[in-house]
């Protein structure tokens, strides 16, 4: 059947995360952006929600199972709250979820319990490279097999929380395909470089990471001899990113709508004018459309169907939508939308990012 109602459990999840977004993320977001720092307390409280452990099976210390749809539902609320701090909170997922999806039994037993404890795990992943025409299917970072180890060389960027990470999941091209390798921080040859600065999401600390002949044992190749299928990981990531985008867009749309009903020009609220009202209407339509598309991809993934095409379509549409909506929100606020008093200018800077962040979020 085609039906669209959340279960009571899903409603509770959404309510809980929304409350976190409203009470913790929103008050913190402007300082976090200006000071380029996600407050520890916000991360602590977020971690206490147990979102990641609830997607890890009990046998590895978690208390649930993975559901792309549940993730999409709560990601929308996190994106509504603040994308930058949310991405910080979700950084450990970048290591844990691929292990959850593709790890050998040993790898799952060894690593997944680390993500089910009280401490915020110090783990991250390196995928994006500082090159034009970046393609996760054709990486510049290379891994070569040398007897009982792999040797990895390359340059990575956009690595969240690399400065404090103890575990890195490094994506590299090996045997003509993208594979992933577990690299502990102290491995010789791995150097965490400068913190990078990007257009938005300044609450998220991201770094360059260089790998120079980094050697890891065979056992550290994710998935063992079978390896990984990067497209499946990217499918999860695309659905997650689309859901986050829907949340970011919804935030901007709601803010612009409320502003337009209050702001008086020519004797009436500007929301009385079709040019403004129609912008808002089209925002609402595309946000709902992106949401449904994301839900469908997530549902099919959970249903063990091939959701890769739908995930690509969902992300393609959401990337465009979130830019248009956040752009529209700035426009509705006019001059006030341009200054860093209101949040819409930040949301516009965040909005442009989605089209460029392949693999930056996974939930």
């Amino acid at each position: 059947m085609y039906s669209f109602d959340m279960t009571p459990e899903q409603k509770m999840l959404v309510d809980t995360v929304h409350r976190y977004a409203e009470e913790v993320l929103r008050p913190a977001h402007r300082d976090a952006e200006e000071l380029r720092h996600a407050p520890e307390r916000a991360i602590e409280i977020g971690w206490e929600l147990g979102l990641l452990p609830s997607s890890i099976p009990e046998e590895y210390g978690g208390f649930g199972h993975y559901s792309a749809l549940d993730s999409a539902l709560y990601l929308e609320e996190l994106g509504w709250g603040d994308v930058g701090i949310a991405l910080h909170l979700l950084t450990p997922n970048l290591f844990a979820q691929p292990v959850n999806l593709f790890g050998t039994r040993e790898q799952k037993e060894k690593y997944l319990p680390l993500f089910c404890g009280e401490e915020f795990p110090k783990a991250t992943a390196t995928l994006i490279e500082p090159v034009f025409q970046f393609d996760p299917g054709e990486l510049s970072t290379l891994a070569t097999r040398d007897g009982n180890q792999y040797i990895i060389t390359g340059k990575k960027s956009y690595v969240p929380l690399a400065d404090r990470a103890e575990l890195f999941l490094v994506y590299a091209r090996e045997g003509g395909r993208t594979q992933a390798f577990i690299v502990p921080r102290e491995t010789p040859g791995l150097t965490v470089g400068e913190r990078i600065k990007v257009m938005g999401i300044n609450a998220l600390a991201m770094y360059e990471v260089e790998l120079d002949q980094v050697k890891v044992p065979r056992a550290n190749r994710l998935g063992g001899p079978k390896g990984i299928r990067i497209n499946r990981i990217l499918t999860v990531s695309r659905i997650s990113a689309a859901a986050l985008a829907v949340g970011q867009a919804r935030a901007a749309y709601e803010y612009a709508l409320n502003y337009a009903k209050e702001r008086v020009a020519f004797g009436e609220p500007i929301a009385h004018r079709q040019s403004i009202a129609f912008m808002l209407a089209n925002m609402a339509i595309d946000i709902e459309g992106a949401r449904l598309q994301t839900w469908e991809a997530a549902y099919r993934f959970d249903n063990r169907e091939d959701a890769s095409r739908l995930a690509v379509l969902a992300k393609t549409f959401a990337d465009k939508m979130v830019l248009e909506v956040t752009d529209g929100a700035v426009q509705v606020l006019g001059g006030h939308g341009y200054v860093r008093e209101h949040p819409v200018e930040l949301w516009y800077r965040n909005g442009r990012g989605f089209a460029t962040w392949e693999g930056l979020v996974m939930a």
Partner: protein
Amino acid sequence: MPIEFKLPREIEKQLQAVKVVAENVMRPESRYFDEHEHERPVNFIHMMWPQMKEMERANLEASLRRDRRLRENGGGGVAVAEEQQTRQRLGNMTLVHMIEMLSWGDAGIYLCIPASALAGAAIQAVGTPEQKERFLRRFTEGEPKWGAMAMTEPQAGSDTSNIQTTATYDPETNEWVLNGQKIFCTSGKLAYEESDGLIVVWATVDKSAGRAGMKPFVVEAGTPGLTIVKEEKKLGIRASDTVSFVLEDCRIPGDNILGDPEVKKKTDKGFKGAMRTFDATRPIVAASAIGVGRAAFEFARDTLAKQGVRMEYNKPRWKLSSVQADLLEMEAQLRVAWLLTLKATALLDAGAENKLAASMAKVKAGKVVTWVTQKAVELLGPLGYSTATLAEKWMRDAKINDIYEGTGQINTLIVARTILGYTRRELK
């Protein structure tokens, strides 16, 4: 019901049969009826009539059952809700899927489907049980027939409250006398002259009362006083019958005003009731639009693939060729329009409020398929523009969907007013 995206098996089966008709009856005749405007697609009509008769019968019986229950329970209650759930569970969802597929076949030919259509929708929305039986029984039996709705006039399109056609009651003969003119009436000739059908004509019983004076009247086939004066020549959906007619002292029985005495009073209850039918018909028009869009997209994609230009889903945006990026965008936009339509339909079947969802679906579908069909012609180049393929026809067929059943602008206005909580006074 929980979040789910699964085509019910019952619908899947029915769709297979419809696809066969679309591919084997409609497509081969597409170009012919596009070039022979005002000829009737008789093969299609006769092929669909048995199934349509059956659907009309099922709808009518269910509706009358519901009315009986309402009378017995004194109105409303659990029994009615349950009945609605079982009967309507898949009603509109099935229809929407069928119409998408039929329009994928040929949107103009689809509009020639013999059914009560908008007339049936209006009668179901505000008719008394006696009227439903009297007017709708004919669509369940005998020869193919058509229902039509006549609202638009030369000076009144989006502004429906500006209609000038009048209905005056003659107490001596217990008849309503209609005077005025209508334009752009779909299947008007089929309903009035070429079958034993009927037209629901909107007229005003009191011009000064605005919307409150507007009432629906049933003019049955062959009633004297109605003259069809024009058969439109159109940009697209040329197989569809679109007519203008004039009413000159057209007399109809006093009982042919739709609705109970409450509705007949000077309230806008009847108008509102019929406007509510648009919440049901907008998803259907959206579905029809998407069928045309899907035809164009699939044809463009498959034709280009044969030339070696294939869609690639796993390449980053900046590595796609311009054509690949266009195809990806076309598919994504179509998918969004379809999902919005499915949601509006699911709400309808669940008996829930769906005005916002229906208008959202209509806006998006109208816009998207206009663009998608334009793109298909562009991407196919000179052969896309030529009548050598159907692509140019699909672009012409698509355009109406952003116009009828409420233009994209009107529907955007409805969405805007709803999200802002504004009345007509606050947002014009």
